[in-house]
Structure formats: C-alpha cells, structure tokens
C-alpha cells in the first residue's frame, strides 16, 4: 500500500452535506479512500450512512460539497458514476428477481459493452464477440463469489446469503475501482458472515478499494483498514480500527450512557477487537 500513497486517493469526498428540507442528514462529511483500502462506515441507525452512500453514487445530489473519484469530479448520475468505476450494493437487496443469477451479472456488464440494436438484430461479429465475453465474465464472477452452482437459478429463489453475494458479483461485473457495500452481512449467520469477510478480502486483493457500511462491530474491526464513525450526520471520528474502537464517544454514541445497558454492550465492543 505504500506504493500507492503517492497517488491521489481513489475517492475524496469533501464537505458533503445533504439536507432534506430542515433536516440535515449528512453534515459536511469528509472521506478519503486510498486505492486497495477497506474503509468501514459505522454509526447508529439514522446516522446518515446510507444517505452518504447515495450522495456518493449519484442517487442524491448533495446540497453542497464535492466528490472526486479517480482524480475527476463525479457527475451526479448513477449511470455515470458506475461508468466512472464506482459500483454499489443495496441495504435491502435489490436484485432483478425474475432473472437468473447469470443474467443479473450480465446486466452488470451493460455499461462496459456497447452492442447496439442493429448489430444485435443482425448478429454481427461484434455482437457475438461481446456476448461471449459477457458470458465468460459473468461465469467467472459467479465463480469468484462462490455461486458457480446456481448460475441458472432465478435470483429470487436464492438463499439470503447467496442473494447478497450475487449483488456483489453484479457490482463487480461493472469493472469498478471502488465497491460500496451497504450492510453486506445484514441477516447473515456467523458462518455466512465469515464467508463475506473472506470475499471482501478477496475483492481487496484484486486491487479494488472497498467501502463497507456495517453494524457488526466484530466484522468491521477485523476487516477494515480504516473506520469512519458517523453520528447524526457528522463525522465523530475517523481512524484505524483500534483508535475508533477505544474512543469513548463511539461507545457512547452506539450504546448511550444509560447505566443499565452500558456494560454489557461495552463488553461486546471490547471483544470485537482485532485480537479477538
């Protein structure tokens, strides 16, 4: 990673603010993600994590602030953002339920292919070549995320964990440089969570940067290179997992200062350290 530090970070968000009427959901948040880095985004419910994601991916246009991606300002259009190399998954899974796993991933290739209507109808050489490449890549990606055995299944019939992985495969199909994962382990059992963790490491090893929203502290602290904690739309702290974990304000934000439930959850946070 030392070699890449001289380059500009893959993602630089400066002063991103998002207001809905009188509500400031995201309040001047700064975020820097280096290439090949796994960045964790934590915070209690309603802290504005997903809204911030939506600002990054063009679903929302930030009220103010600037997002630079790969040394260029991002256009505020989801399609253009994907084109630029930033792909995402959704907190509530949004697969194309009535398409097969294979087709779902092939849709992800849409922005990297260009066969038009005419060549599609006359089945020109360009169409054939591109279609074959799309297929090969989709099969490869499904294998990569471990769904090689359900290629022809309808997405809606997959198990919950498989659906999450399929979403990741679909995002990877867009050839991203940065993947944004919105709660990739929500609703997973411990074993599936461990698999997800391995998968994210594998993605990082491909040279991609990853930003993860998560509630599972153990997961986030063992996974991430850096962690950003959002509370009520503001950055509470940004640092290494150790720094964030030991910050009393994080514990307070997550658990509150209520005397009765404090210690138990504090213990849980402690146990989620990298050594655990």
């Amino acid at each position, binding site marked *: 990673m030392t070699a890449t530090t001289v380059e500009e970070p893959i993602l630089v968000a400066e002063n991103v603010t998002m207001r809905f009427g009188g509500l400031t959901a995201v309040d001047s948040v700064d975020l820097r993600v280096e290439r090949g880095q796994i960045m964790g985004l934590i915070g209690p419910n309603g802290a504005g994590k997903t809204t911030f994601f939506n600002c990054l*991916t063009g*679903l929302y246009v930030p009220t103010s602030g600037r997002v630079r991606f790969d040394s260029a300002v991002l256009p505020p259009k*989801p*399609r253009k953002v*994907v*084109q630029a190399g930033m*792909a*995402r998954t*959704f907190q509530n899974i*949004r*697969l*194309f*339920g*009535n*398409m097969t796993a294979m*087709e779902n991933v*092939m*849709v*992800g*290739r*849409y*922005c*990297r*292919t260009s*066969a*038009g*209507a005419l060549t*599609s*109808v006359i*089945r020109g050489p360009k*169409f054939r070549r*591109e*279609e074959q490449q*799309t297929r090969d890549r989709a099969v490869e990606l499904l294998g990569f995320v471990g769904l090689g*055995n359900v290629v*022809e299944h*309808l997405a809606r*019939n997959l198990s919950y964990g498989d659906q999450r992985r399929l979403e990741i495969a*679909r*995002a990877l199909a*867009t050839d991203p440089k940065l993947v944004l994962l919105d709660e990739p382990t929500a609703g997973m059992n411990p074993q599936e969570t461990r698999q997800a963790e391995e998968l994210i490491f594998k993605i990082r090893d491909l040279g991609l940067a990853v930003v993860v929203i998560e509630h599972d502290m153990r997961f986030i602290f063992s996974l991430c290179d850096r962690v950003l904690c959002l509370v009520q739309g503001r950055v509470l702290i940004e640092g290494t997992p150790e720094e964030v974990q030991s910050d009393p304000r994080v514990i307070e934000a997550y658990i509150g200062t209520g005397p009765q439930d404090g210690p138990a959850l504090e213990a849980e946070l402690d146990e989620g350290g990298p050594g655990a």
Partner: protein
Amino acid sequence: MRRIPRLVTPAQQERFHRPGQIVAAVGGLLLTVTPFLPWAFDSAALDDMTVYGYPSPLQLMALLLGVVMLALLAVGEWLRPGRRVRIAWNRGAKAAGTGALVFVAVILAAVALELGGLVNVTPGGWLALLGALAAFVGTRLIVGGPPPAVERAKVPGWAGILVIAAVMAVVLFGSAYALNQDDGGTFVAFLSFLGAVIAVLFRTGGMGLITVIARAHRKVLILSAFVVAFLFPFTQNGSDANMSIATQVLIFAATAMGLNIVVGLAGLLDLGYIAFLGAGAFTAAILSSSAFSTVSWHPPFIVVVLVSGTVAATLGLIIGTPTLRVSGDYLAIVTLAFGEIFRISMNNLDGTNGPNLTHGTNGIPGIPDLEILGFNFGDTHTVFGITLGRFSNYFFLLLFVVAVIILIFVRLNNSRIGRGWVAIREDEKAAEAMGVNVFGLKIFAFACGAFLAGVAGSVKAHADISVTPDQYVFLESAFLLAAIVLGGMGTVLGVLVGATLLKLMPEKLRFVSDYRLLIFGLLLVLMMRFRPEGLVPNERRQLEFHEEDTELAARIEEELEETGAMKEATR
C-alpha cells in the same frame, strides 16, 4: 390447470381404482361406438349428425377422444412408469375423461340451442353423454400416479422431426377446419375438443416431450411453422372470406408483437398503442395513389413502409420523451389519452377544423392494391391449380412482415438491450445504479414498438382498402393488450396464439356478438385467477406465478443435480 379442486381424495382413489378403470373403459367404449349413431334429429344442427354408421367430423372427434381414453387406460394399466422418463398415462386419461364430458355437453347444448330444445337430441346423443359421464366419473376414481417427467427423454432425430411434422400438419388442418366452420356451435365444439386434446397432452407430459423435441430441433420447427403458415392459403380454395380473416389475424399479431416489446420486455404499460398502427396506416394511405390522397408525392411502397414506420416512431418519441420519466399508472394514463388524441386529431384534419389531410371521419378510401416489382396484389393467381385470391397475396406479405418482427423481437430479447429492458421492468432504480441507461432504453423500446406498428399499419392500409379514424379506438388497444396477457407476456408463441384467438373468435362467434365483451372480460378474469402467466408462458414467468408449485421446482432441482452429477462424472 393444477388447481382443479379434488373431488375424490387419494385414499378413495386407492380403493376405487379398479372399479374406476372399468367404469371409465365402459365410457370410452360408448364414446367410440355412439358416433356411428345419429345424435340429432335435424341435419341443420352443427355438422349433420343424423346419419347412421357414418360419423360427422364432430362425432369423429368424440370417437377419437374415446379411443385415446381407452388407449391411455390400457397403457396406464400395463406399463409400469419409468424412473428417469415418465409419461403419466392415467393423468392423461383423467384429462381425456373431463375433456370428453365438456365436449359432448357442448355438442348437445349446441344442438338444443340451434334446434330449440333438448328434445332434438336423439337417444344416440344421450348415449354419448352417458359414455362421457362414465368416462369422467371413472377417471376421477382412478389413481393418477406420479407427475410426468420427460425433460431427460432421448428422442431420436428422425422421430423428433416426424413429431414436428405431425404437429404442424395437425395445426394446418386444424386451423383450416376451424376457419371453414360457419356454424358457431361447431366452432365452439371444435374449440372444446382442442382444449381436451391439449389438456391430455399437458397431463401426460406429451407437451413436455414436444417442448424437448422443439428445443432439439429449433430450426426445423421454425422453418416448418413458416411452411405451414405459407401453405395455409392453399387450403382455402381461393375463398377470400376466410383469407380476409387470416389477414386481419396477421396484422393483429404483428401489432401485438410490437406491443410485446414495450409491455412484455420493458414493462411499460401502453394503452394507446393502436395509435401507432393508425399513424402508419394513415401515412401509407396519404402517400398512396388513392384518388383521395391529400399529398402529391407517391413513392414506391418500400419507401412508404419506411416513412410510415418513421412517422409512427417519431410520434412515439414525441409522446415518450416527456412521459417516460413517469412510470407505471401515470404512463398508462398518458398513453391512453394519447390514443384518443390521435383518433380525434385524425377526425379533425378534415379541412374544416384544420388542414385537410385525412378527410376527417370519412378517412381515405379507394387505396389501390400494392404493386411490388410488377406483382399486383389485387390479382388472382393460380398456383398448382389452386386459386389464390387478393387476400392470399397480402397474407404472404404479412407473413414476411410478422417473420421480420419476430426476428427483431427475439434477437433484441437475447441481447444486452433485452437484458437491460427486463432489468428495468424488474427494478428501475437498481438497473440505473448498475449502469443501465434506463431512460434511453425506455425511449428506444417505445420508438421501436411504434416503428414496428407503423410498418404493420402501412400494409394494413392497402389490405383494408380504406383507412378511417374510427378503426383506431381505445378498444383495439385494449384487445392488443389482452392478446398479450392472454397468450403470455414477453413470449413469441404465446402472443401469436393470443392474437389469433382474440381476432378469430369474434369472427366465428357472431351469434354471441352482443356478449362478446362480456365473454372476453370473463375469460380474462378467469385467466388471471387460474393461469396468470398466460396460455404459453415463458419459463421465467411460470416460476414467478407458481412458486408454490413444488412439482416443478422439484423437477428442476432434480435436473440440475443430475447435470451437476454428470459433469462430475465426466471430469
């Protein structure tokens, strides 16, 4: 089809299996014998069922059902079902029993209606009904056995091609027979016979077998389908009345295929689609050398086709660009309004309310027949001693148009663009977030569908001779949509079947024309209740609607495991 309530519990079936078989066999025998007796006292009813020893076509159908019934029972009794490949003979017998009962009941009801009372049914007819009843009751009592499993059947190539040829021959003669029936009762009876045959095919697994064969010999199938369609005019002995209906069916089917792109693939509900057909027809009429044409430019037809398509597509773009940003119900309302605006505009372009382009309500009559490369479509030709009239010529042209539209539909569907459309239909937001050009693809679907409708319209103008605004009312749009829903959204075969049914039935069921809409409404409601995926669903939608259908799921599961195991083994 799978939700028919159980009349008899499985336990009772176990107990009464043998008596059931006997009763059903007696029923089957009666059905085989009674066709040789007269069923009606007057030859005016249906297709003359008054002759001894010489069954009429409808009686022959009853005989056929009886024979099939007996054969299914016999084979079901003596042949143990295989494990890998299984034909469900007894299930087929059940379907045949039910079908025979409906068929005979329809015939007797038609006789009673046409001759005035059940007194016109002879003892032979009552005996046939008794046979059908016995067949029905008996087959209810027998054990159906496991569902069919034919996906892994190995059919030798020659046998497959023979089956395809047989199916195609049946389709050709069936449709020729159906079109030639001027008697409503006969037509309905034939439809119920067809229903019975198809039910038997489905229940035994024969339909699955045909699907397997069709998959293996796709090219042969497509080619033979077009050969059959091509041969169809030769079965009509130059009768222009039937060919006129056939031409209308093809125009309707071509338009429905275009709408299928918009609704079936991209999922955009368009309730004013008929306007694009109208735009094409009016353009072609105005550019034709009709005496009532209002423009002095009369280019050759191939140019007219392109201009008509372009005009329709342009209209599509104009209406689509602002409205495709809204979706769902809003789009439906806007397109509905657009359809009406089109019709009223055409009415108003009459020289009084606006420039004279369409002669208002009178429209443009006297459109001359097409002439392509010296071939005049109005002429009658004699090929191999068979006369082919004017409408046969248009039929051939339309066949070509339909083929092109199907080609475009299928190829777009199996491409990056088609996947984009389906993704938009599934989840617009997610599609956008995955880099799909949602707005562009929607516009393209709209314009593409409009273009194809415009092309169909340009042929329609010449085939119909005159174009008037009142041909393009909302009801027609609704019928197009109904054809798609009835047949199966997003499929080729389904939409063709749906279009044929919806266009053919009003022609042949003139005696219930007052209740036409009521019947269609009922039909659609029943379809939505029992078979929401349409008559010929694509596999995807079948899964979508019958998720609880464990049989199907289990079968697919099993198949996948098998192929997986095979792969392991080959490694």
